[in-house]
């Protein structure tokens, strides 16, 4: 039976304690031999002498969750994952804070690592999420995703 669509959105930054709790929750799943984790952190770029102090994320949430479900199903099938979790921040995230947490688990390391990497690439390309880079002086520009 297909599971209901999982929510991936978290308001505000993803805290290190949230991440450790999620890792600890996998202890009973003893079929897992490897986890792979990707953490996206807001980078303080300097653009035309102005420093990015935060990124404000918004999304077309209903569509993003449907698209993420398609990616999740594909990754579980392709890499025979035991489980997979994705969390993405919404709202204003300051530089240095975590805004993306991708966590894949499989019986062996290669599947976990490859699935994690492919999920990050696919979600950046396929989920309707937008980041607005906010500068120290209050001005902003719309973020553009670059290749890896």
């Amino acid at each position, binding site marked *: 039976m297909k599971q209901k669509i999982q929510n991936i959105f978290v308001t505000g930054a993803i805290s290190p304690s949230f991440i450790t709790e999620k890792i600890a929750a996998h202890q009973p799943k003893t079929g897992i031999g490897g986890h792979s984790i990707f953490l996206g952190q807001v980078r303080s770029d300097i653009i035309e002498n102005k420093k990015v102090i935060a990124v404000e994320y918004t999304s*077309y949430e*209903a569509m993003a969750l449907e698209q993420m479900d398609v990616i999740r199903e594909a990754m579980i099938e392709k890499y025979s994952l035991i489980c997979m979790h994705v969390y993405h921040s919404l709202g204003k995230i300051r530089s240095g804070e975590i*805004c993306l947490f991708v966590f894949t688990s499989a019986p062996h390391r290669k599947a976990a690592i490859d699935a994690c990497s492919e999920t990050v690439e696919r979600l950046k390309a396929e989920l309707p999420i937008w980041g607005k880079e906010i500068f120290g002086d209050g001005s902003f520009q719309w973020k553009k995703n670059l290749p890896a």
Partner: protein
Amino acid sequence: MAIKIQLYGQLKQMAGVSELALDVKDTDGLKKEIAMRFPEIEKLTYLIAVDRTIVQVNTPIRAIQELALLPPYSGG
């Protein structure tokens, strides 16, 4: 009949509203209407989603459908 169209990201900022109501019959008609009302949006690349699926070819629109204009994604 006016169709509700959701705007996101930079498009929402440029239009100054999160939703438009336009009298359009298909996605080509929608693009024309946007070009006429918001020439600055027309200069950007954007995608049209009908019922949460991107459509690349001209597609008829019915009032009960969920329409959205999406600028290039920049999540992650």
